[in-house]
């Protein structure tokens, strides 16, 4: 779901647009805490949860519109629903609710101008391609070979395969909003944070700049602990100098449900694992959150079985009431040799999530 404020998309001299956008975000948050600014004037929020509560997406749209209108009556607001930010922004322009299956058809008639690519907007019409649907109809390979990688991203967005398009988001918007809101952002590096020259910080920043020059901007990272919204929220590495939007709460409030100490190795991509009892039967966690057997051995990524010496849990992972229901449960295992790991069970499968290294 996207909320689009046509009057706030460009910033004037006085910063009024950012302040107004902040009010819109706060109003939307009354209905759903997981509002995410995408760029100035545009924000997204997950539609499924509130729509389950309110009885359908149109009801959510109405409720949001009412909430925002009462908080900031002078701001023009457009709201739309579609999978992915690219589609949702367009849906907002015409106040549409677009389901997953309808996305490609919804996108088709729009002009290629909405991609925001000046060169493609000049070249494609000469080849008879004027709409997203006509672009999507071209073979992807030809688009790539003729126009390059960015055009391929446009092709994917136009066909509804991918919901994001480079350039749609302004990564710095959260920092701008925080500044205007007067909220401190402890995890964001600001070289002038101490209000004056910090020689060590400047040396570090210079080394980072050189590193980024040689390894790419994504290669150097800083840790971000999302303490603000959820005290136990998962932390992650973010590229040095960027400010990422908080995004969807996909992984839930973890490791808050598990007490400290936290694991020192948290896998960005959990690996498939197997947990079995003494006769080799795979274990499962039932609907009531209990193991259906005694863990005796564990294997990760098709590797050798290692015997389980001790275990704790399982702990059901609690999701927010408005998110898509996922029944997950976590188990701590101590394997032979004293190796402590965290595995998670969901729909018949175990994955290795973390190692207490």
């Amino acid at each position, binding site marked *: 779901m996207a909320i689009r404020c046509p009057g706030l998309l460009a910033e004037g001299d006085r910063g009024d647009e950012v302040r107004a956008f902040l009010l819109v975000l706060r109003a939307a948050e009354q209905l759903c805490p997981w509002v995410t600014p995408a760029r100035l004037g545009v924000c997204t929020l997950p539609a499924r949860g509130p729509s389950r509560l309110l009885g359908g997406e149109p009801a959510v749209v109405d409720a949001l519109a009412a909430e925002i209108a009462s908080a900031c009556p002078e701001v023009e607001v457009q709201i739309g629903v579609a999978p992915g930010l690219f589609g949702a922004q367009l849906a907002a322009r015409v106040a549409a609710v677009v389901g997953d299956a309808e996305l490609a058809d919804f996108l088709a008639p729009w002009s290629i101008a909405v991609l925001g690519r000046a060169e493609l907007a000049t070249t494609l019409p000469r080849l008879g391609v004027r709409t997203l649907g006509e672009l999507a109809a071209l073979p992807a390979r030809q688009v790539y070979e003729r126009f390059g990688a960015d055009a391929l991203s446009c092709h994917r967005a136009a066909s509804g395969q991918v919901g994001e398009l480079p350039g749609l988001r302004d990564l710095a918007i959260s920092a701008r909003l925080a500044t205007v809101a007067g909220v401190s952002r402890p995890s964001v590096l*600001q070289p002038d*944070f*101490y209000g004056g020259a910090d020689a060590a910080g400047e040396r570090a920043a210079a080394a980072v700049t050189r590193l980024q020059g040689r390894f790419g901007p994504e290669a150097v990272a800083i840790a971000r602990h999302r303490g603000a919204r959820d005290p136990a929220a998962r932390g992650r590495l973010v590229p040095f100098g960027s400010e990422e939007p908080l995004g969807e709460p996909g992984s839930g409030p973890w490791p808050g449900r598990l007490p400290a100490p936290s694991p020192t190795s*948290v896998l960005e991509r959990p690996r498939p694992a197997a947990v079995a009892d003494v006769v080799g039967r795979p274990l499962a966690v039932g609907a009531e959150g209990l193991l259906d057997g005694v863990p005796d051995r564990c294997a990760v990524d098709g590797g050798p079985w290692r015997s389980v010496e001790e275990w704790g849990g399982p702990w059901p992972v609690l999701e927010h009431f408005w998110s898509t229901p996922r029944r997950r449960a976590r188990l701590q295992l101590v394997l032979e040799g004293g190796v402590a790991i965290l595995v998670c069970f969901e729909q018949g499968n175990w994955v290795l999530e973390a190692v207490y290294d």
Partner: protein
Amino acid sequence: MFASSPTPARPPLPAALAERVRPVATASSRLLPLAPALLPLFGGAGLQRGTTTCIAGPVGVGARTLALTMLSAASAAGHWCGVVGLADPGVSAMVELGLDLRRVVFVPSPGGRWSEAAAELFDGADLVLIRPAGPVAHGVARLLVSRARERRAALVVLTTDPARWPLGPERCLVVRSSSWVGVDRGHGHLAARRAEVEVLGRRGASRRERHQLWLPARAGQVLDAAG
């Protein structure tokens, strides 16, 4: 400086607060601060600039915890730290260990160019933790050690096997054994890990120093477990 849009101007901190948050690190000190629980493993002093410390142990028994703890007091005191080749670091764990994550720079996946990244970081950080993916070539190790000395930075090498670092470090800490308290068979949870850490001198000879540490203790920090 590196953001894609102009950084907004920040109002200066109130003087009293500025005084409290100003880093107390000094470039002239010969020693970098260490967490109190680690001091006995370093002869009671801090971590000498220009030295190499090797931290070894099989995966999953606490060596990573020990290596990350090497950064806690230094980063908290205002020293910048770099971490190279350590993928998937646990952010909550690092916070619990006391690291000031505002001053820790990560290059988690440098691939084959990890030593290049480490060498670069010596220019910007006082402490660099590296986790080589495999055995380190002699020439590479020599280059890093001499760069660390020249830059007066401390090098910490995390490895599964001390033999992978071809030069004799000033100090090598090996996690020999560990056991968890708090879990049983289905009851409780991982509450604290008690580990035995052996300190090796040069050429791998044991100094016959074995220390008991909580790696970590209940709230996630590293503590002395002696007695």
